[in-house]
């Protein structure tokens, strides 16, 4: 009797498993379908794009789309500008953040709490409230239509990252730093030789998340960048969307958007484990 009950429970849980799996799979199709459709559209001829009934898979894939989009050299300059901004910001900014986190967590910093709470209060102010005064500031010193307004404020550090690195450093015993001090290490040496290696995993995770954030940013770049050759990739594809829609060249628009997704997709697939772990940590700590 007990045995059959256990058995029937096991079969019923297997049935539930199957149902759940089918639902998850259907959901996965919904999630991926628009992206696949984007790629398939990019390989269609213009006739196939406007065919009724719809053509799902192009008869002869038009790989040419991915060749002719580079003739519009803006994609190339867009890549270059986005890479310049994202790398400069994240490399220098990560360094500034790590240094500040070390100071806040492990050094005798005067007014530590005032400084920390002051910095945190900055998170409460949304970018749209700051964008007009910042724009005026940068236009007065002639930085409009350069990448500098996108780079300079960010290399002074990112409060969220400082916050997480500081949290991470709280778990490092103070005695380690004290011992290094007694051994005569300078604060700079302690930071570079000891703290940096310790916080490297946290830095790596935050670095990737920040890189993706800067790479995907759209509002700040459209405020500042007017000359097409100076625009970042997101602005370039958004402008191509307007320009080529009038020519009904949807394969090119979809191809360019797909290409714009590739770098981040590659970064994600390579660092998937770190990204997912650090994102999960954000939620549980936050």
């Amino acid at each position, binding site marked *: 009797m007990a045995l059959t009950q256990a058995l029937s429970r096991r079969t019923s849980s297997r049935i539930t498993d199957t149902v759940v799996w089918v639902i998850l799979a259907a959901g996965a199709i919904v999630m991926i379908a628009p992206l696949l459709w984007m790629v398939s559209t990019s390989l269609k001829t213009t006739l196939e794009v406007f065919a*009724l009934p719809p053509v799902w898979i192009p008869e002869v894939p038009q790989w040419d789309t991915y060749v002719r989009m580079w003739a519009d050299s803006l994609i190339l300059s867009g890549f270059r500008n986005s890479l310049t901004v994202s790398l400069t910001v994240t490399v220098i900014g990560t360094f500034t953040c790590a240094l500040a986190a070390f100071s806040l967590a492990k050094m005798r910093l005067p007014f530590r709490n005032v400084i920390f709470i002051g910095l945190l209060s900055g998170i409460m102010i949304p970018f749209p409230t700051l964008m007009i005064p910042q724009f005026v500031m940068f236009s007065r010193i002639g930085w409009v239509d350069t990448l500098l307004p996108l780079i300079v404020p960010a290399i002074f550090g990112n409060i969220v990252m400082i916050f997480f690195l500081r949290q991470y450093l709280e778990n490092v015993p103070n005695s380690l730093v004290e011992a290094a001090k007694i051994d005569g290490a300078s604060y700079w040496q302690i*930071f570079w030789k000891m703290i940096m290696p310790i916080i490297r995993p946290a830095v790596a995770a935050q670095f990737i998340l920040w890189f993706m954030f800067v790479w995907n940013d759209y509002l700040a770049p459209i405020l500042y960048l007017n000359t097409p050759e100076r625009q970042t990739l997101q602005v370039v*594809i958004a402008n191509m969307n307007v320009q080529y829609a009038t020519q009904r060249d949807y394969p090119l628009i979809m191809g360019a958007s797909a290409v714009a997704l590739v770098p981040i997709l590659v970064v994600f697939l390579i660092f998937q484990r770190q990204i997912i772990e650090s994102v999960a940590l954000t939620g549980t700590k936050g």
Partner: protein
Amino acid sequence: MTTSSATTSGSTATAGLRASAPTPPRKTPPGGGTSRLHRHEQKWALIFVAAPLIGYLAFTLYPVCFAVYASLTQWNGLGPMRFIGLQNYVNLLGDEYFRISLFNTFFYMIGIPIGLALSLALAIAMNRKLYGLTAFRTIYYIPVISSLAAIAILWQWAYNGDFGLVNQVLAFVGIDGPNWLASTAWAKPAIIIMAVWKGLGYSMLLYLAAIQSVPRSLYEAAQLDGANSWQRFRAITLPMVRPVTFFLVVTNIIAGAQIFTEINIMTPGGGPEYSTASAVWHIWRQAFRYQQMGYATAMAIVLGILILIITLIQFRLNRRNSFVID
């Protein structure tokens, strides 16, 4: 000043802070803060934290003060600022377009509970030992990491009334879909659907991490007491994921209040009869298209204060309702 070979930015910050308050801090570790060694450490600590401090003063605090003043002026961004008191704030009370754009912004937030419910369901489903879970997780997460600009371009075309993916799929099951983005009734839902689709993987991931940290013994004890799966969900899972729900609601509302990219790309003119225009989009247009810098700043400040108030209310409510399980 005694500051030695620091960067110029470092020493200015040190000088500024020292000048304002020369006394040593209270919260120093034991040993007193007056010795030469400690002065040395304090100096370096300030130098290390100087960059974010200067950044905060120059790119947050100063702009905020400037914004408060600019919001009290009539100003086109280039010419002189003419002080007009609270006139901008009085004007925006009667500005129908600002009211509509605020309404639209909050209307989009309908997507937040929908997204959270769906992602919690997905996370519970993913908590089972199933075949191919890693692949599912990756697929659900791809929209999250994708650039919003590219995604908005894709969905704008997918919502095309005749040739878009959405209506072609709907036609498959015999539904004649609307011309989404050109319809006052369907443009907002279209943007909500897209936003839910894009954010699902993120919330799901956070929920999954929270569910996996719930002790199994809780469920086993409940099962022994005869609780069915719905009761276990209500009494264990839901309270245990509460901190994540709170985090997601707060951050989603803050981000949702600033929705801009998808609006500007998918509906460049603010949609039919301004039906998709969001607050930030409206502010951006007033400031950078019509050069109403003073007025736009006033709107931006109102938006910032609204976000702050809503966030504070949520923290207050959360504190009142929270409880601790050992």
